[in-house]
Structure formats: structure tokens, C-alpha cells
């Protein structure tokens, strides 16, 4: 058997390193933001399961496509009168 590469004791990991793991390839649909319509209510931010809504200075500026799985929750929770997010089919 070849030498095992050294691993941290008992399988310890540095916290938060899943940030480096890509789950964007799971996506079948892609959220698209209409910045002109967005009112920065940030409901999409609080309800996103993948911590993908990028907020800068209190403004919704886009999506982290490394992690976005295309679930469409952001589109669904975007207030009906605003509808700044829509889902489009991911190009293969």
C-alpha cells in the first residue's frame, strides 16, 4: 500500500472550506437579476439555502454561481410586485 498522505488528526477540518467546493454544476435553471426592478428587500438573501445572494452595501448585486444549485427559491420569494429575479434554462 502506498503511503497515506498526512491528514489532520482524526479527520479535523478547517471550518468554512466548503466555500471552495463547487455545487454550481447541479444547476438546471439559472437565476437572472433585473437590477432596475430590484428593491433590495433582501428576502432572497435570507431565504437562499446556498448562501448565494451577493449583497454589497445593502444592495443585492448578483449570485454566487459557484454554489447556486438553481433551486429557484430566490425567484419565488421575490415580491410579486417586484419580480426582479427570473429563472432561465442553464445552457449545457
Amino acid at each position: 500500500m502506498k503511503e497515506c498522505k498526512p491528514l489532520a488528526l482524526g479527520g479535523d477540518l478547517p471550518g468554512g472550506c466548503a466555500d471552495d467546493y463547487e455545487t454550481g454544476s447541479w444547476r438546471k435553471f439559472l437565476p437572472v437579476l433585473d437590477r432596475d426592478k430590484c428593491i433590495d428587500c433582501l428576502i432572497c438573501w435570507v431565504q437562499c439555502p446556498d448562501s448565494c445572494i451577493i449583497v454589497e452595501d445593502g444592495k443585492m448585486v448578483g449570485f454566487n454561481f459557484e454554489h447556486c444549485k438553481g433551486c429557484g427559491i430566490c425567484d419565488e420569494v421575490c415580491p410579486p410586485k417586484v419580480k426582479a429575479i427570473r429563472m432561465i434554462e442553464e445552457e449545457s
Partner: protein
Amino acid sequence: MATLKELAAKEELFTGGHRLCAGCGIPPIVRLILKSTDARIVATTATGCLEVASSIYPYSAWKVPWMHSAFENAAATISGVQTAYEVLKKQDRLPGGDKEIKFVAFGGDGGTYDIGFQALSGALERGHNFLYVCYDNGAYMNTGIQRSSASPQWGNTTTSPAGAVIPGKVQWRKDLTRIVAAHNVPYAAQASPHNWRDLHKKAEKALAINGPTFLNVVSACPLGWYTKGQDSDAHVKYAVETCYWPLYEIEEGVLKVNYKPKNKMPIADWFKMQGRFKHLFKDDEGAAKLVQIQERVDMEWQRLLDLDGMRL
């Protein structure tokens, strides 16, 4: 209480890149709770979807110190961590100096209502200073949608399948929030991530209290509920609007209903949107069961209203 802008400006403590399903209901609960204190958080999680999918070697989604040991012992594990903290703090032996740390244990309904119930009850009784968060999606989702004592009556699961003779899970669900409150803990509450203000406020309150506190949070599961991932937020909204999952809290023994829907949504209107109840919409027998469920939901809701503002 912080606004969403303020919350968004705080560091994200549960990163993307975890392997929970698209549209999973759990992460919004975790993300919000981890942002509900200015103190540092150390967390543990019972074996289950959240634990497995957030810690696949060598990737961890937790930016707070976090550990998992087993399924039935999240409350016992955090008891040990929290006791170690108290002892080391007294002796000035904490790594990185004396910092205020809050302890949080997460578990699904399987790890909380069922297999982890004894450890939870023990830790509550001993009075450890920690918050226990149950994300209740009403079945053992991690192992493939088996019934739990939190599963809704007549719902279809893989161990209470809707069969020709027995149409789903026979029993009514365990009322864990009341059971926890009966431990006379300083704070126990039910919440829904759709009502994020309410959840955030409850988490802030619980994390500020010195002693054992408990949050039971409804969590949508597209896989187990046979629903669409994009609708997860809507489903935990309907759970509240139907009064199936009332928002209430018991603080120092006083019960308070936090939200009373103006027009209670009929339970059948919500169940109809979920594949786990589709067998109830096929015939008269199913219709009769839906009537019974509605009666029970109404009775439970009325009981809560009767107790609103009362010292239990």
C-alpha cells in the same frame, strides 16, 4: 432586532458549497440563527442531512467551531463542550483568551423527537447553558423519508407508506415543544424560516438567556414532501397559515401566540400541494381523514389561543 441589510453585512457563518439538496429548507434556518448573536458560537449537530451534507471531508460549510459525534446525543455532546468551557474559563485556560461563547445544538426531528429525546431531556433538566434547535421536516429524510414521531398523521413515508389497507402514518404527531416546555426551561418556541423576523427575534432571545433554550423550527423537504425545491419557503409559510405549525413561545412559563392568521388556510389546501398526501385526495375515505385532521388542527389551535398570555 437587526434588519436584513444589517444581517447581510455580518459574516456568513454557513457557507455555500454544502451538499444539501437544491431547495432544502434547513440552511436558511441555520444561517439566520448563527447571525442572531454578537457573541461567538460553537455548534454541534446530530447525525442527519445537515450534518452529513455540511461536512463531507475535506469540505466543511461551518465557519464556527463545529462538531458532530453521533445521532442521538447532540444535547449530551454540547453538555460536555459547554461544561469544558465553564471549567477552562474559570481557570483562564481558554485558547485565545476569555471570549463570550454561545452553544448551539442542531438536530432534525429524528435526532430530537425520537432517538435523541433522552439526551435532550437530560441536558434540559441539568440546565446547561445552550440553545437546542430542531429543524423539523417531519420524517427521517437523511435515510430516505422514514416515519418519525413528528411525521404528520396520514402522511406517506417509506415506513408508513400509503397502502391499500393502511393509508399512511396512523398516529398524530408528538407535540415536542410542549414536552420541552414541561421541563420548565426559561424559553421554548416554535418558528418558521418564512417568518424570518419572528425566527430571528426568537433566536436572539434564546441566545441571550442563561440556561437551556429550545427552538422548534419547521423545515421544508422537497424530497420527502414530494414538493418543488423552489416552493420550500411557500410551504413553511402555509404550515403557519394553516395553524398546523403555530408560531408561539413560552417564556418563563408564560405562553404567547406570536402570530394569528386573519383567515386560517384550510389544511387540505396545503396538503393538496404535497405528494406525501396525494392519496388523501383520491376518495371519500381520504376526504373523511382530511376532515378529521382539520378538526384536530382546529382543536390544537384553539387550545393555544385559550392559553395565550397564560402562565402554564
